[in-house]
């Protein structure tokens, strides 16, 4: 497998699921790997584009902080400048990646130097109009630069306004296809400049004119707008400049932009039109009639985004641009396009949606809800009638639209229209009746739902629908779930439950009248489902249901067969019957039924439950019974986990018993601050130090033969209450802490049990033992299960505990009384081995920083005290060794050179270097530092 294939696999795995991928490594090391490979001259462009794509799509995962973002952007910039001229596509991709990193890691928002430099560089690139200097082949770079600038202005509005004059000139000069990019860039800058000006209190003519003549640096300090601006159609009040400003120049610019707009691609053109509409809306001195000359062209367009932009214009300017005649014409065009045979289905659906939200000049209601424009008459909408030949989405969309049309229409016309729609619904039902496929059933029920939502009040029609549905049910009982769903949804959406009740009565009747052979085992389960739903309706008498159940049980062999599912389904009906308000009328019958089951049904569980329901029925009043059933049988806890909970379909009951959940943090783990010298690994045996000098390393390494030697890091935490917890949690008992790892660099952490935590007592100390496979920083997700004083159990999450890199450091794992000499020998041996590249993951590196004498001493004392091997103050040389389980070493030799402190680093695992670097950088932060990798 080649390197490229390896990367290919790696990157697809990352893109498929970044979290799973990073579970086996860290974002730091992956980023380091990526950048390393990007700098590799031997890698081809194809591979590099693939590598860049990761940064392009997930910059925030790889660069979690602004500083990492800035460093990464710098690295990418150096890759960009070292990429040969001919690698155009790679260069463009790197440019996009830099822009994404800068914007997404807030480098732009924080005005870092990097972002400033990048903006300047981009602006420099776009100066080469018509490719005079760099040649035609470099055109894509320019196009990308324009697009990067546009995105930066969009995400941080107000950068470009001071460059408007320069941008205007560039836009005028450019004649290649890129004039589109320049034009869009200029227009965006212009719009944002005006938007900024609208927030100012008084605007003078001079200020207004000066925005067009801006030719300075990027406006970093100017009053920046919010990160993202809402388009004006979403704002309650459109920001406006004061009236009376001199708009001559702006007007001529707008006209020329509009005149050339047809030269752009339809999508860009629609974006341009939207920007221009916003500008005109903000400047009272500009008249919407500017757009008049474009209207005809736009009315005739076949492009969906251009038509959409025209509707946006209509929405913004209404009758100041569109006369009543224009409006009527536009609406007709919309209806025409909504059914044009040569447009695609999604486009037609979109146009239908646009009809429902048509911005009328004189809207009756101004709410955002869909309403039919008054101009859409049945006559106009005739061609939008649904047919059985339509695809499902079109059919449903048309049906919905036409329902609205006929709901609003005059009586005579409406009757005809509604009866057509009714015929259509009947035709659909007929298809189901002829054994329509599953999809057809679902679509038809959706159509039925839409129809009923509008016309369920028309008794004659809705009765006919019910008759038809019941008739179909008698042949196709598999429709039961669809019918129940329909009844439920209609009941939810309409305040008036009459229709659903009627349907359910019809279904009940239909089941009663079925000849016995149809009540076979298979169909029976559907019928029982329907009856269960029917039993929920207080308005429906249940006598027939009970008779039927009794009849079936007595006259068939169901009881002997003792099928648990069937028994269960029968009892589910009974459970709803127990809650039925007028059950007193059929009290005896129900009691008979339950008793019959409890005696004759061949199944212990069913019998038991029937008896239980019988007891409830005969011993409790209706109020108490429903109370008991609704609350989930509070008294009989022992029963709750048995099948009665499932049978009664009240899963809620179980929650009374189970562990409660709280989303707030109740407890937290706070790191115990300890001195490094206190820490050591657990070995305490004396080593024989009498061996030969050469054997020291072997002796040291020999220790690792003992299983588990030096493999654990113990971290100590105080377990305390989180801030602002409920007094309920002041005393908690039998706490079980459970740890989940976010990655797979560590072995599973065992649960920890703590007897109690009281708010007013000293917090208990918890020792968390970590066993790394790879000593990388990590984060632990902690949850706790505990009991409060009232005896209830709770589950709560704790704030995540992050384990930083230095927290995994251990001193050299040797017995405490080992001589210094021995330690130093081991240090030297490991150093030599690492320097000579043995084992093969070894690496050495160098880190320099400047500091004053005393602060160096402080630094060593605070950070390296426990890890010092030798401390030769006189020679200005310190040797430090960090041991990282399972068996990694990081060795530092700190020497004070004339002008700087040098830290030579050796390690037997080069993958740790990025962490060592950032650790050292961290602790030497107050000094100026330079880094050199070895």
């Amino acid at each position, binding site marked *: 497998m080649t390197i490229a294939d390896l990367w290919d696999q790696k990157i697809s795995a990352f*893109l*498929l699921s970044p*979290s*799973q991928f990073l579970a086996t490594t860290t974002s730091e090391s992956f980023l380091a790997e990526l950048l390393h490979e990007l700098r590799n001259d031997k890698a081809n462009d194809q591979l590099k584009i693939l590598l860049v*794509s990761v940064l392009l*799509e997930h910059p*925030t995962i790889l660069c979690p902080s602004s500083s990492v973002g800035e460093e990464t952007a710098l690295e990418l910039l150096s890759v960009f400048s070292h990429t040969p001229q001919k690698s155009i*596509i790679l260069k463009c991709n790197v440019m996009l990646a830099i822009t994404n990193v800068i914007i997404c890691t807030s480098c732009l928002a924080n005005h870092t130097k990097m972002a400033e430099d990048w903006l300047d560089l981009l602006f420099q690139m776009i100066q080469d109009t018509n*490719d005079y200097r760099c040649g035609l*082949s470099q055109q*894509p770079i320019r*196009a990308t630069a324009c*697009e990067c600038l*546009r*995105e930066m202005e969009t995400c941080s509005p107000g950068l470009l306004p001071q460059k408007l004059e320069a941008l205007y000139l560039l836009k005028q000069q*450019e*004649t*290649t*296809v890129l004039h*589109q990019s320049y034009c869009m860039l200029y227009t965006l800058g212009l719009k944002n400049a005006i938007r900024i000006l609208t927030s100012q209190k008084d605007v003078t003519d001079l200020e207004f004119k000066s925005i067009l003549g801006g030719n300075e640096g990027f406006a970093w300090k100017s009053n920046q707008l*919010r*990160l993202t601006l*809402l388009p004006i159609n*979403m704002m309650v009040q459109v920001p406006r400049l004061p009236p009376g400003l001199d708009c001559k120049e702006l007007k001529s610019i707008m006209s020329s932009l509009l005149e050339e707009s*047809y030269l752009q*691609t*339809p*999508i860009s*053109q629609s974006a341009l039109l*939207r920007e221009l509409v916003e500008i005109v809306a903000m400047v009272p001195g500009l008249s919407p009639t500017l757009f008049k000359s474009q209207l005809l*062209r736009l*009315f*005739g367009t*076949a492009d*969906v*985004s251009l*038509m*959409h932009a025209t509707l946006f214009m209509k*929405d913004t300017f209404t009758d100041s641009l569109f006369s009543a005649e224009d409006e009527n014409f536009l609406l007709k065009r919309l209806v*025409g396009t909504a059914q*044009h*045979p*040569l447009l695609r289905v*999604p486009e037609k659906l*979109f146009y239908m*949606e646009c009809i429902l*939200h048509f911005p009328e000049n004189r809207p009756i209601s101004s709410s955002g809800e869909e309403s039919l424009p008054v101009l859409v008459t049945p006559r106009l*909408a*005739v*061609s939008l009638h649904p047919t059985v030949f339509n695809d499902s989405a079109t059919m449903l*969309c048309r049906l919905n639209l036409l329902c609205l049309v006929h709901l609003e229409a005059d009586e005579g016309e409406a009757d005809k229209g509604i009866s*057509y729609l009714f015929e*259509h619904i009947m035709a659909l039902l007929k*298809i189901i009746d002829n054994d329509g496929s*599953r999809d057809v059933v*679902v679509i038809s029920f*959706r159509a*039925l739902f839409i129809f009923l939502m509008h016309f369920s009040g028309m008794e004659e029609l809705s009765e006919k629908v019910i008759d038809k549905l019941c008739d179909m049910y008698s042949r196709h009982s*598999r429709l039961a779930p669809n019918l129940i*769903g329909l009844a439920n949804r209609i009941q939810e959406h309409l305040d008036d439950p009459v229709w659903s009740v009627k349907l359910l009565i019809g279904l009940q009747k239909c089941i009663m009248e079925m000849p016995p052979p149809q009540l076979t085992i298979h169909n029976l389960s559907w019928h029982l489902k329907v009856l269960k739903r029917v039993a929920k309706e207080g308005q429906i008498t249940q006598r027939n249901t009970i008779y039927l159940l009794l009849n079936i049980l007595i006259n068939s062999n169901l009881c002997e067969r003792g099928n648990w599912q069937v028994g269960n389904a029968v009892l589910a009906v009974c459970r709803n019957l127990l809650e039925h308000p007028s059950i007193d009328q059929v009290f005896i019958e129900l009691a008979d039924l339950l008793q019959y089951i409890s005696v004759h049904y061949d199944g212990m569980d069913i019998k038991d439950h029937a008896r239980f329901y019988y007891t409830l029925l005969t011993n409790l009043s209706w109020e108490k019974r429903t109370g008991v059933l609704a609350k989930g049988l509070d008294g009989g806890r022992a029963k709750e986990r048995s099948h009665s909970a499932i049978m009664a379909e009240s899963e809620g009951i179980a929650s009374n018993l189970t562990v409660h959940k709280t989303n707030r943090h109740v407890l937290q783990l706070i790191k115990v601050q300890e001195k490094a010298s206190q820490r050591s690994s657990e070995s305490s045996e004396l080593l024989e130090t009498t061996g030969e000098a050469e054997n020291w390393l072997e002796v040291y390494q020999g220790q690792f033969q003992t299983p588990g030697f030096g493999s654990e890091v113990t971290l100590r935490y105080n377990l305390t209450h989180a801030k602002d917890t409920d007094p309920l949690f002041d005393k908690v008992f039998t706490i079980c802490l459970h740890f989940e790892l976010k990655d797979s660099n560590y072995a599973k952490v065992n649960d920890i049990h703590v007897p109690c935590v009281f708010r007013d007592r000293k917090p208990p100390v918890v020792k968390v033992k970590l066993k790394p496979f790879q000593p990388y920083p990590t984060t632990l997700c902690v949850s706790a299960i505990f009991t409060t004083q009232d005896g209830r159990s709770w589950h709560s999450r704790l704030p995540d505990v992050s384990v930083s890199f230095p927290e995994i450091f251990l001193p050299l794992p040797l017995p405490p009384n080992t001589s210094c000499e021995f330690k130093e020998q081991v240090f030297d041996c490991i150093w030599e081995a690492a320097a000579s590249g043995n084992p093969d993951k070894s690496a050495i590196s160098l880190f320099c920083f400047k500091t004053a004498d005393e602060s160096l001493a402080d630094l060593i004392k605070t950070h390296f005290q426990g890890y010092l091997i030798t401390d030769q103050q006189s020679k200005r040389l310190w040797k430090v060794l960090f041991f990282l389980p399972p068996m990694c070493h990081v060795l530092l030799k700190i020497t004070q050179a004339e002008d700087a402190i040098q830290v030579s680093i050796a390690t037997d695992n080069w993958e740790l270097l990025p962490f060592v670097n950032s650790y050292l950088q961290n602790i030497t932060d107050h000094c100026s530092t330079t880094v050199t990798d070895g």
Partner: protein
Amino acid sequence: MSIRALWVVSHEKGESGKVRFSRRFPTVELRAKSLAGTQYVAIPEDCVIPKLLLTELGLVDADKPYVEVRGDCARHHRSLAVELRLDGPGGRTLWPLLTVTQGALILACLPLVEAPPEPRPPLPSLASVSQGLALLSGLQDFLCGPGGKPEPDVLASRLAALPSVLLQVCPLGRPLDTPLPAGSVPAAVAPSPGGAQKQPAWKAVVHQGRAVVSVALTEKVRSMQYGKSSQQDIWDVYGVLPNVTITLTLPHNGSPLQDILVHPCVTSLNASILTTCSVDENDGSAFSGPYKFPFSPPLELFRLCSYTSQVPVPPILGSYQLKAEENHLKVNVVLKLHESVKNSFEYCEAHIPFFNQNLMGSVEVKVSSGQLEVSKEKNWFGSLKFPKSREATLEGTVHFFSGTVAGPTDPLCTGLTAYIKLYFRVPDLTLSGCCVDQHSVQVYSSAKPRIVTTRELVSSEYYIWNSTGDAPVSSGLMML
């Protein structure tokens, strides 16, 4: 006016969905986050996207008859945009996801909602929606090409080319253009340098071969004929004119072209061209040409203009009678060619399919002209050739095997509900009479291009229903 992410998911029968291509736009995501504030819903990782998407589109659990998430009757009335329910019903949702399905491929994109998240804004108020739709249509053409069903290896190579296509048309989530349909650009092209005049953005390259203007006029006719007085037959005609100023003329008394939609490269339009609309009632005063379209053409084939037209009679009038007798069906078909239509078909076929029946056995049918063709596996037979008399008949009986081998099924065609479907093409003819005169094509260029004009009439959804059975209700036109 941006999209947050884009996916191409494939969904083969019996397999779970697979992400074939995906692209996220982090800067747009940043904006989405800031716009939605606390109601922001992050996009889930690609590994869970197919399942969520297929669930919404009702393509999961094919073996189960009813699943509530799929079968709920109150959902998805407008499937233009679906929502992904990330934590099941009642949980967080990602909306509005635009989808386009072609064969086993599902293209989806998530437009940025530039509006306060609650209440959910109407789709037409979001600029990104139409842009997302346009981008998806473009990608569909690019991936699937004109045939609509590319070979797996062709598809794979087109998918592999997507990153560089997106670099051009949508580098940072904001669509700039739509990709060109696969294979539509002529080979001999070069990037165009700047000149004295601004170059249209849809013509990024210049053609280096001989210039050709080819104008093809295709008219399609669709029809539903019922053979009953209670149900009115309908037919309509629509045309496409791909590829300077082109003048379209109609014969002296031709009915006007309606619902004209033009390609954005057309620079100006005469108001009278747009006025006729199929939703209006026609009066005699309507504009009937000539229709002039000045435009600056892109290099690839494109659809300059589309229209519909109302012609007084369908080109082929048919009657179909099917009767059931004991164990066979009796068929009687008469087809008449209208006198205005030239009898010069390139092909013309009448297919008579039988659904929801057993497989066909013997077919004893006499045809007045042409040859009988029988497709036993697909359960249809057919034939058609119009003799000089312009009338063709077909008469006879069809027997079916009595075994249990069932033929093809169709939810509509049960009992005696059955149809004949016509397939035909007549070169050099349009029903509306619309034509482009080769000499009327004006090209403003120093090079003299070759000008080719063609026209044709093609059938599309041309059905003749059995008049002795129930034809499905088809249109409200006749009732209103």
